[in-house]
């Protein structure tokens, strides 16, 4: 795993922010992954193509990048298959239930100075820190 590299972290973060800004400036939409995927699931008529296109861009990005400079590192995920499936269920249910995830609340919501998103972000980061403290140190 790569060491902490502040310039890459900041540059990558700025790109995420630029993407979020572009989606609002060009299409007038919030770049929340949970909201985008939920819209596909909810089958909003006439609203599918841009959602699927955004998701496609997200998946194509590491393929394009891998051809040139920055290949996608093989994801290292701890835990059994049971933990992975349980975590996926919790992430999907919880993020939609709470109206957003790291992108929708953590980036877009905080950038809008939404108190609602600040509360959500604080709660999910604090919960995740607690879960890691228990699973790794208890």
């Amino acid at each position: 795993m790569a060491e902490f590299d502040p310039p890459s972290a900041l540059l990558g973060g700025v790109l995420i922010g630029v993407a979020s800004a572009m989606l609002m400036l060009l299409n007038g939409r919030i770049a929340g992954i949970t909201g985008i995927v939920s819209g596909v699931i909810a089958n909003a008529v006439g609203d599918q193509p841009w959602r699927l296109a955004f998701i496609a861009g997200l998946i194509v990005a590491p393929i394009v990048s891998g051809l040139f400079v920055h290949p996608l590192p093989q994801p290292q995920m701890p835990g059994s298959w049971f933990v992975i499936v349980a975590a996926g269920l919790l992430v999907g249910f919880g993020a939609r239930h709470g109206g957003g995830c790291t992108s929708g609340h953590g980036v877009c919501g905080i950038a809008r100075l939404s108190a609602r998103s600040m509360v959500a972000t604080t709660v999910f980061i604090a919960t995740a820190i607690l879960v890691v403290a228990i699973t790794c140190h208890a």
Partner: protein
Amino acid sequence: MFAISSFVCGLVFGFGLLISGMTQPAKVLGFLDILGRWDPTLAFVMAGAVAASGIGYAIARRQGHPVFGAQHLWPTRSDIDQQLVVGSIIFGTGWGLVGLCPGPALENLASLSPRVIAFVLAMLVGMIAQGFWQSRLSSIRVVKETPLASADG
């Protein structure tokens, strides 16, 4: 054009996650593990993302309408309710268990890792299940004439 510009936004978003290292679940867990060898990367990523997004949004507020759309769809809710908190606790639990949230999970599908594919399928099942749960909740709430919940992002 609407879908093409959206594809480009997804692409840039994906490059950002990749360059910042946030597609790697182990690195996200390194940030969440404050009792271990703490990795501050995620905080730097969020700071950069919020700053750039905030500038873009400030410009968008002065824009009559988006370049390829009729209007900006800003989230309208500002209330802090129980569902927001409960949902975020459930999401945070799953996120802390493996270090994957929806964006990096989808992007990691490109690795064709069976574990990522299993996670994403479970995540979609979770989202669909929430939809059913929500429609049940809403049908009860109709009696009380409470407005429907809408997604923030």
